[in-house]
């Protein structure tokens, strides 16, 4: 019997919400779990999807920047790269993503952070010191609640 409305089919397949497979949506919830929360949490789902899309976009741009930046010694050239500019064009939403990336791997994200934050927490004595500048920005991010 191949009637999807039959009780037998629904019992086998997991009910009206689709198959019994653990298909996940949003932040790791199954669609069935989401439904059980009561009101359809559309805003929550949209925000979760938007965050995930932004994070994926940032990761792909960061990977492109790392893979294709030439052997330049100039921070100006390094940060003029099209993928780097695309990260800056993401706006303030990119700030926590850059900070999390900086916490994982120290790299020359400072120009982007400065542009997006419109601040510069790096003291002049730290200029050029990758580790010290990264720590200055991570501390700035923690103070503003942008890092866990």
């Amino acid at each position, binding site marked *: 019997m191949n009637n999807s409305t039959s009780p037998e089919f629904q019992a086998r397949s997991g009910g009206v919400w689709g198959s019994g497979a653990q298909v996940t949506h949003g932040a790791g919830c199954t669609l069935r779990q989401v439904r059980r929360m009561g009101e359809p949490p559309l805003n929550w789902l949209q925000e979760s999807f938007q965050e995930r899309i932004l994070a994926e976009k940032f990761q792909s741009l960061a990977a492109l920047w790392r893979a*294709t930046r030439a052997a330049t*010694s100039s*921070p100006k050239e390094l940060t003029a790269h099209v993928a780097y500019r695309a990260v800056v064009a993401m706006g303030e939403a990119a700030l926590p993503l850059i900070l999390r990336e900086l916490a994982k791997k*120290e790299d020359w994200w400072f120009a982007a952070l400065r542009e997006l934050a419109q601040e510069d927490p790096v003291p002049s004595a730290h*200029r050029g*010191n990758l*580790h010290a500048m990264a720590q200055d920005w991570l501390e700035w991010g923690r103070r503003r609640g942008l890092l866990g």
Partner: protein
Amino acid sequence: MDFLARNPAEQPNFPFLFPQNHRVTSPPDARYNCIAWAVGETGVCWWPHPDAYWPPDVPKEESVQAFEQALATKGFEPCSDGSLEPGWERIAIFVANGNVTHAARQNSDGTWTSKMGIELEDIAHDTFNAVEGPLYGQVMCFMKRRR
């Protein structure tokens, strides 16, 4: 190990680098760049840029004059060529499109050493012009200081 074998995307930028005329001498390191390496520093990046170290009172511009002033703060003075002179350490300054792009330092055996970019390896190259090309341009001038 060949720099271009490790970084094949850089091949068009360095048409005069061959496996026979250079070798990689360090792992990749993003903490310093070619100017820092030229003056013997490995904990900081030198450049006339807000994110880099630049000596106080030196114009923040990518001109040869500004770089000569910056390198003079470390004891370098202009000289005429890249020949080997016992007791002296030389630097070659590279220019492309009117802007300084790179510096290489002469080793005591007459070979040269370059930090490739901000984040790649150091290499030793037989001649200073082995890293000339579309990215670094050409050697524009030399400086020297006592070893």
